[in-house]
């Protein structure tokens, strides 16, 4: 669980090269193909070249670029399309062309978290089949990525196809920080922002250090937010307490779930937040539902929307 980010060492040669290529695009260095050719031992692999025309490319860029598959969680697809577009915009501005494989639906987390593994298994298999052609898969949800990276083992006991895909699936912030090494963002957001630390991103993907562990503090989402001009981060008293969404928990334990949410909102309000952001829209869907019902002066925006420069 703790070593996922450091898993590059276990990926195949090809994907390491393609990540390097992605990196050089992002940093505006020489064209990736030239760089790749310069590398010793780089043979005839075409795996990071566009091979298929079936998925939809998001722009008409030249054909030789790493293939980045966009994984849009089902509820974002259906209810929050702009979070998907914000993700696309952030990536495109950094020179990454994304494809959206249309066969994708859901990673199977709702079923798996209820214990219904038989219902989750076919969705897990579909996910691997759909995304295995890509050099990287990027998703604006820590929770869905955690499902794939931390909980798919059960469905793929040492299946090389899954083992090859697993380290290539990234949550948006970690892709921006770890792979693209983003160090500036030309966007402005002159507001006080509270970062809600979505649990699966924090404690399963280790997008940041959790308050329980005694390690040198780090936080990838915060690192990106700090690049936004005018954005002022506020500090809630409890830095990373759960919002109470928890999938079906939100409904089956309605009373506890809503109390947890109310407490998070109160904490961010007392810290002076005007906007609450998170790496997971599911947390924000729950919190926003409470905020709107109670008519609280707080807006919820996904971190992709802030990174893309969306106004409040």
């Amino acid at each position, binding site marked *: *669980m703790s070593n996922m980010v450091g898993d590059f060492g276990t990926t195949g040669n090809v994907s390491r090269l393609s990540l390097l290529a992605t990196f050089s695009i992002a940093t505006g260095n020489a064209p990736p193909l030239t760089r790749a050719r310069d590398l010793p031992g780089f043979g005839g692999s075409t795996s990071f070249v566009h091979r298929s025309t079936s998925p*939809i490319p998001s722009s008409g860029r030249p054909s030789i670029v790493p293939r980045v598959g966009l994984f*849009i969680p*089902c509820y974002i*697809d*259906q*209810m*929050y*399309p702009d979070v*998907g*577009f914000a993700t696309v915009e952030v990536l495109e501005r950094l020179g990454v062309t994304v494809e*959206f494989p*249309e*066969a*994708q*639906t*859901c990673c*199977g987390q*709702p*079923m*798996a978290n*209820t*214990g*219904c593994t038989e*219902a989750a298994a*076919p*969705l897990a298999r579909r996910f691997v089949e759909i995304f295995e052609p890509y050099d990287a898969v990027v998703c604006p949800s820590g929770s869905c990525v955690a499902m794939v990276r931390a909980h798919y083992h059960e469905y793929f006991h040492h299946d090389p196809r899954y083992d090859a895909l697993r380290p290539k699936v990234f949550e948006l912030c970690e892709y921006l920080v770890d792979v693209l090494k983003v160090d500036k963002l030309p966007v402005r957001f002159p507001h006080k922002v509270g970062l809600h630390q979505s*649990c*699966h991103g*924090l*404690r*399963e993907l280790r997008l940041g250090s*959790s308050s*329980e562990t*005694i*390690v040198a503090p780090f936080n990838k989402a915060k690192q990106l937010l700090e690049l936004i001009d005018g954005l002022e981060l506020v500090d809630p008293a*409890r830095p990373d*307490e*759960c919002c*109470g969404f*928890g*999938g079906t*928990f*939100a*409904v*089956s*334990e*309605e*009373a*506890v*779930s*809503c*109390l*947890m*949410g109310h407490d998070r909102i109160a904490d961010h309000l007392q810290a002076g937040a005007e906007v609450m952001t998170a790496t997971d829209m599911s947390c924000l*869907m729950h919190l*926003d*539902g*409470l905020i709107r*019902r109670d008519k609280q002066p707080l807006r919820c925006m996904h971190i992709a929307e802030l990174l893309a420069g969306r106004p409040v």
Partner: protein
Amino acid sequence: MTGHPTRAAEFIALPQRAAWHDQSLWFVRAKRDKAAKAIPEWESLRDAAAAIKAHTVANLADYLEEFERNAKKLGAVVHWARDAAEHNAIVLKILSDHNVKRVVKSKSMLTEECHLNPHLEAAGIEVVDTDLGERIVQLANERPSHIVLPCIHKKKEEIGELFHEHLGTDAGASDPQYLTEAARGHLRDRFLKAGAGLTGVNFAIAETGGFVVCTNEGNADLGVSLPPIHIACMGIEKLIPKAAELGVFLRLLARSATGQAITTYSSHFHGPRAGCELHIVLVDNGRSTVLGQDDFRRSLNCIRCGACMNTCPVYRRSGGHSYNATVPGPIGSILEPARDPAKHASLPHACSLCGSCSDVCPVKINIHEQLLIWRRELVKKGLLPLTKRWAMSIGSAVLQRPWLYQMVGGMGRMALKLLPRFLVYSRLNPWGKQRELPTPPKQSFRDQFKARHGK
């Protein structure tokens, strides 16, 4: 689902109490953070503790026999109990053989697990819990709501009333020092009259045959120093191989439990006092079954510090009694279903899977992952309500067919837009009781993406 959600909702129905309970335990969690941060090698200590426990559990039979040999050499009598019934029978027989009528007991979650008190009381023996919190819940005829802070659910005013009724303190008095002094006087009398002292065991050491009991009140020491018989009851997982390893656990235990550097008393027992008897009861009660399960073996690492309860956002807001279990909270939600899955089927779901318990655990039990595995076990045992199973099967069938998923998604968004509010926010929609649903967009992401990118 009934069970935990219903009892949790009852606890939350008094919002001030739930908020106070949450804040009291968060305060303990914050103290733990401060204490842990003062130890730069904290994470290495956790790794070491987990490794020692893993090694011990992998060689448990050998270490148990080594412990028995060495404890006997020191003059202790060692008993083996397969289950709670055998444990209770052994304790009762020791007491009957010595014609003991009054027993003082320091805190032991194992004797709670075995329901020892009612068993002894039925045989006419008076059992007095001497840990202050335990005594309070005993007088209130309740079970502990927390394994380290047994009466954390009670306010001092309620304790004042209870003491007024049972100990004759002044009506309306709720000053903690006054109440504690009253309890002290009351307990001192029981200590002096007791024929035997019962304790739990925090750590037993195979190489020495000795064991350690950690308390803050010194009640265990008094309870076993006055009467001529000491009975120590321990789960077989309490063992560690060497005395040198004790430091790892003592450094972790109190810091994780309450944020103290160490408990006030860490008492080491090596055989009986001169002229007295020491009995050690080794209890399995399901532990060897867990030992055989790859998915759950690590739960035997537990040193009962209670840190997972203090950090659990659900426990803090629903109270220990909502778990209706000997051990509540995250670790209890693993241990209790192992004993009675049907009775405790709601516990693995009383969790938002936030993972805070796994990160706080001093012996690195993957608690939230085990809770998730328990949910799978419940489905296998047919203990997930059928409505949920069907919903998940139907959901999966839809999500395996992109065209159907798109159609259902579109219909759902349309319905949300067109249906009158009273239908959407009916009593059948628990989401909408305190929350708004999201405002549905006209088109899904994929529809718009297709339109924008010309395919």
